[in-house]
């Protein structure tokens, strides 16, 4: 970090510096800037269906709780008692009893965060307590917006509203949520979590990297092919094989799958076709969707089957199967990735079973597909430090300056990654408030 400054010298138009992945200082600055300025996915409202239900997580390195209030709205609060800083809840999820009660000294808060009680209240009379920050109760981590059940939060505003920042991702969320005839998704079946020793951006890039499967996933696809062999004509291919075999597609397939880069580092990969295009087994479900949404919308919903919709910087969705990955960055070289499955309400259980099967096969820490990815990520984290060349190449199809997003691109154009790093540089850059010492 002695020879380059953060972040100006680290991101060029067609290559990025290895310190992006290797430097603890860069990660610390990401926590102060990028993760506070982007809309971060927090959770899904189906995880906290009833008033008083909560889940905990970290955002930008800060412990927060996502809480369903008495009025059914959703709060994302600092999980820190205003008194002495104790965590209000320690479980990953649960239900509070009427009020939030700190386990340390018994201060209590209503579900809107207001301080509602404390022992020995008379001891505060005649003090300046009511003017102190503690008297304001639990503070919100930032702005909170819920769209189709997806809860996003942002600690620092850039003055632009949610819909502006998310752009076409709103339509993508609507298309995925409308896979339910009643328009509601529910997270179901629990989560698979993998911890790996590499920078979160290596994983985030990989979600948009359609060139790696041919080599990285050869072990899984060749093995699946060898076991499946050439069954007699008319043999029904089991869903497990229908999910695995397409990973063996060639470069031409991936090139033609198409992508769309969006402002803010967001993107859609697989706008024309994806490894998931052939999944939809319809029958009654298709009929239910047509009845609920009309012929045209149902067709549009079922046709939207991208490889990944990337909500930069930490979330990605697949439409079919309905699965979601969430990155939880822990350190510059340590990340947890969560794999969740959705049950579209009013749709057959087979859709949830298909999503859970996909997660087992592709994202489980014991899965067929993830092993080679994770091994390479962890090795890159070490080997990238080697040698005199500090740059990671993003040159593929970088002929001249990249056009403005949103725009359609080829499926193997590394603009899908350059677009992430353009957003990274913008979110990491110094703002006026930084100089004043308020934000940085």
């Amino acid at each position, binding site marked *: 970090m002695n020879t380059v400054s953060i972040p100006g010298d680290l991101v060029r138009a067609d290559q990025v510096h290895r310190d992006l992945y290797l430097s603890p200082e860069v990660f610390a600055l990401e926590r102060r800037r990028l993760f506070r300025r982007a809309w971060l996915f927090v959770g899904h409202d189906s995880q906290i269906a009833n008033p008083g239900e909560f889940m905990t997580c970290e955002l930008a390195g800060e412990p927060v709780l996502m809480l369903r209030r008495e009025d059914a709205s959703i709060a994302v609060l600092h999980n820190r008692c205003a008194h002495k800083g104790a965590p209000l809840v320690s479980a990953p999820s649960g239900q509070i009893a009427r009020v939030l009660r700190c386990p340390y000294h018994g201060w209590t808060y209503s579900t809107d965060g207001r301080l509602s009680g404390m022992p020995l209240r008379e001891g505060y009379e005649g003090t300046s307590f009511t003017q102190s920050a503690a008297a304001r109760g639990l503070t919100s981590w930032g702005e909170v917006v819920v769209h189709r059940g997806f809860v996003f939060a942002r600690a620092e505003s850039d003055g632009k509203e949610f819909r502006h920042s998310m752009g076409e991702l709103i339509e993508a969320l609507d298309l995925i949520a409308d896979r339910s005839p009643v328009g509601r998704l529910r997270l179901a079946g629990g989560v698979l979590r993998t911890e790996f020793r590499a920078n979160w951006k290596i994983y985030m890039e990989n979600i948009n990297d359609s060139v790696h499967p041919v080599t990285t996933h050869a072990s*899984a696809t060749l093995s*699946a092919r060898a076991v499946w062999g050439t069954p007699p004509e008319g043999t029904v291919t089991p869903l497990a094989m229908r999910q695995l075999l397409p990973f063996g597609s060639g470069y031409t397939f991936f090139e033609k799958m198409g992508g769309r880069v969006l402002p803010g580092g967001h993107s859609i990969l697989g706008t024309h076709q994806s490894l998931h295009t052939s999944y939809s087994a319809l029958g009654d479900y298709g009929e239910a969707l047509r009845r609920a949404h009309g012929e045209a919308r149902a067709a549009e919903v079922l046709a939207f089957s991208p490889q990944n919709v990337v909500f930069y910087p930490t979330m990605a969705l697949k439409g079919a199967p309905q699965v979601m990955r969430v990155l939880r960055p822990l350190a510059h070289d340590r990340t947890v990735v969560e794999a969740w499955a959705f049950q579209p309400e009013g749709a057959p259980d087979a859709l949830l*079973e298909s999503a859970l099967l996909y997660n087992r096969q592709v994202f489980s820490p014991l899965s067929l597909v993830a092993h080679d990815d994770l091994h390479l990520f962890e090795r890159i984290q070490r080997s990238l430090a080697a040698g005199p060349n500090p740059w990671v190449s993003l040159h593929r199809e970088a002929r001249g300056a990249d056009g403005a997003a949103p725009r359609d691109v080829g499926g193997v154009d590394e603009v899908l990654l350059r677009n992430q790093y353009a957003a990274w540089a913008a979110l990491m850059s110094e703002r006026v408030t930084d100089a004043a010492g308020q934000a940085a």
Partner: protein
Amino acid sequence: MSSPQISPELERNLQALVVREARLLDEQRLDEWEALFAEDGRYWLPASLGAKDPLREAAHLYDDRMLRRVHIERLRSAHAHSQQPQGRCHHLLQTPEVLEASPTEDRFRLRTSFIYTELRAGRTISLPGVAHHHLSRSADGFLIVLKRVDLLHAAEPLPAVEFYI
């Protein structure tokens, strides 16, 4: 099934299968290991404590014969980057306990406490847990109908684990 009143010899034979199953995994004799399963036998590694439904709850693995064969094939593949260098695993078992036996003595459930250790590329991971073997008697001896592995860390973030636990 009722709580077992079985002969010491039968108990020993059932325990021997559980011990052999772990040894075949540790010695990477994976075809012989796979052959211990019944035709419709399943290997289940839940991702939560007290899991009840392998299809509608998240699991790290729920493999039938076809998927076990794909896994085994992959571990041998020259393209399996994560097996360069080749990893090894070790099962340390407590005495398997016969928890259930059917009255006709053709279905059994055994519980075995274990510590699974895996060494790969210089890194060691260690995972304690309990294995439940559901066995059935066949003409060729006992077969595994279900091996369910409940890890202490079932619901925690796990590092990549290469082999069957």
